[in-house]
């Protein structure tokens, strides 16, 4: 199981919290230098996996090897090889950005000189130089996130874990964060990333594993997954609730799979292949039947669509 070109290998991971089974036998394999996206809704078990792999939590069963080192047998050796940025930015709010990074460098035993140099380098790399000597409680959410990520990189770890790195960031900060992560990965770092956004997994990950109720319910490349769930979604809202089924019947031939209707919202959603063209055709069809439409659009698939396709139900919080 200890092949040199596999950076993270996980087999049969189980974790229970009393009645709740947070992980129910998870297997993962991340080849060196690639990015694995763990995609799942709230309570799926993403953080539990990250905490076990970063030695913060003991599993009830299963084993994990990181960079050739057994996580359970040699936790300290594993810690030398990994960087972690947890779900909630763990920066010390009373220290400055510089002091936070310098402290982490010292605790990785980089030595006094090297720790300082590295702290300055990282502040520069993450556009935090100007704020570097301010206590971090004056930082914005995005700045804290960046500093936390910088903390994970202090010792140039070969394996990196990022738990929902962009949750809570505005669209611009999110795009910036993606850029930073892509740069890292280009440098050869192996990355395990968790996210609730299909789009994020699509942009950043080579492979995606969909997690639900502590189990991997689908896996593959972003393209494979998208082929499985279909591409863009056509979404229509009709004015008259009574004619929703009629509208669904009319547009069915335009989709790659049958539409799903939501009576409450008077809307239907259907996977289509030729986005805008399908939209125009659908609107023409409905108009010819004098079926009034309140809202119409084409959008990329979301995590909800993935779940709709894979499990037949939308995302819901695990018990």
């Amino acid at each position, binding site marked *: 199981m200890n092949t040199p070109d596999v950076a993270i290998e996980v087999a049969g991971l189980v974790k229970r919290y009393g009645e709740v089974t947070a992980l129910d036998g998870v297997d993962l394999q991340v080849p060196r230098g690639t990015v694995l996206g763990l995609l799942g809704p709230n309570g799926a078990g993403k953080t539990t996996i990250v*905490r076990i792999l*970063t*030695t*913060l*939590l003991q599993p009830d069963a299963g084993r994990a090897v990181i960079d050739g080192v057994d996580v359970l047998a040699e936790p*300290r*050796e594993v*810690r*030398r090889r*990994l960087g*972690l940025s*947890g779900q*909630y*930015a*763990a920066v*010390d*709010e*009373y*220290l400055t950005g510089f*002091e936070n990074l310098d*402290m*982490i460098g*010292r*605790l*990785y*035993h980089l030595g006094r000189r090297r720790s300082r140099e590295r702290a300055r380098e990282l502040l520069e790399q993450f556009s935090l130089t100007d704020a570097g000597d301010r*206590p971090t409680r004056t930082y914005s959410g995005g700045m804290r996130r960046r500093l936390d990520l910088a*903390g994970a990189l202090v010792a140039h770890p070969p394996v990196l874990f990022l738990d929902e790195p962009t949750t809570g960031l505005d669209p611009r900060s999110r795009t910036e964060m993606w850029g930073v992560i892509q740069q890292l990965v280009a440098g050869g770092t192996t990355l395990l990333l968790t996210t609730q956004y299909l789009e994020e997994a699509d942009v950043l990950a080579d492979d995606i594993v969909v997690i639900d109720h502590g189990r991997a319910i689908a896996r593959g490349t972003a393209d494979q997954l998208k082929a499985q769930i279909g591409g863009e979604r056509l979404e229509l809202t009709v004015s008259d609730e009574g004619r929703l089924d009629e509208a669904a019947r009319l547009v069915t031939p335009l989709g790659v799979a049958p539409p799903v209707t939501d009576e409450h919202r008077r809307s239907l959603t259907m996977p289509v292949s030729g986005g805008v063209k399908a939209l125009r055709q659908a609107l023409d069809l409905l108009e010819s039947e004098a079926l009034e439409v309140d809202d119409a659009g084409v959008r990329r698939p979301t995590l909800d669509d993935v779940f709709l396709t894979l499990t037949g139900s939308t995302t819901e919080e695990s018990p």
Partner: protein
Amino acid sequence: MSTLDVVTDASVVAKRNLIKIKRVPDLLVFTTLSPIMFVLLFAYVFGGAIDPTGGGAAYREFLIAGIFAQTVVFGATNTGAGLADDVKKGIIDRFRSLPMAPSAVLTGRTLSDVVNNVLVLVVMSITGLIVGWRINTGPLEALWGFVLLLIFAYAISWIMAWLGLLIPSPEVINNASFIVIFPLTFVANTFVPLDTLPGPLRVFAEWNPVSAVTQAARELFGNPDPNPMSAASLAWPLQHPQLYTLIWAVAVVAVFAPLASWQYRRAASR
């Protein structure tokens, strides 16, 4: 993990905690202003009430060591509240994911609280000197008195460290520890002579380690009880206050340092 790593890691963590004291106005106030207030309040309010004829001067001198003991014991709450805060904010998770010495977070924490207590004792001593307290012994004896107070507070810090990791809520820790610390520091010889206490309370006070460390400090500073009881009527801990304080401190560290370390390994945030 070399011994050197263990020491540097602890000092890195201790330095981080001390920076926090500098940056958080509340802590700085607690560290410097409240000790001054304690000395003034207790010296004049209690001193005047208990010894109205003498103008309170003798009792003021008697009280100072009690105020010192009470304040450093209260200071130990910082240890618990600080650790609880770190668990809550995920800082402990960050530490636990680093290849540092696992002991460093706790030793660093308790050490920085010793430094904090040194500062508190300096501030209180200066205030005490201003209101008429004097050290009537040699410098070495006095120094040993201060060291005993610090050792005692250090031991209490380990109890608080364990509590802070067990109950990771700074507010709960503050309230819970006050419930324990108030009786511990008041049912003692800190502010009133023991012979004023009724039977069961008096027994508790005689065996209370806070009484012993206070008694030891009084002896070492040369601040005797203005109405001394005969030595024979004192319980064993108060006849050997230095020894009792040391035994007690060693026992507490021996029990609570392993407990706190064990709790640290399983501390989980959110």
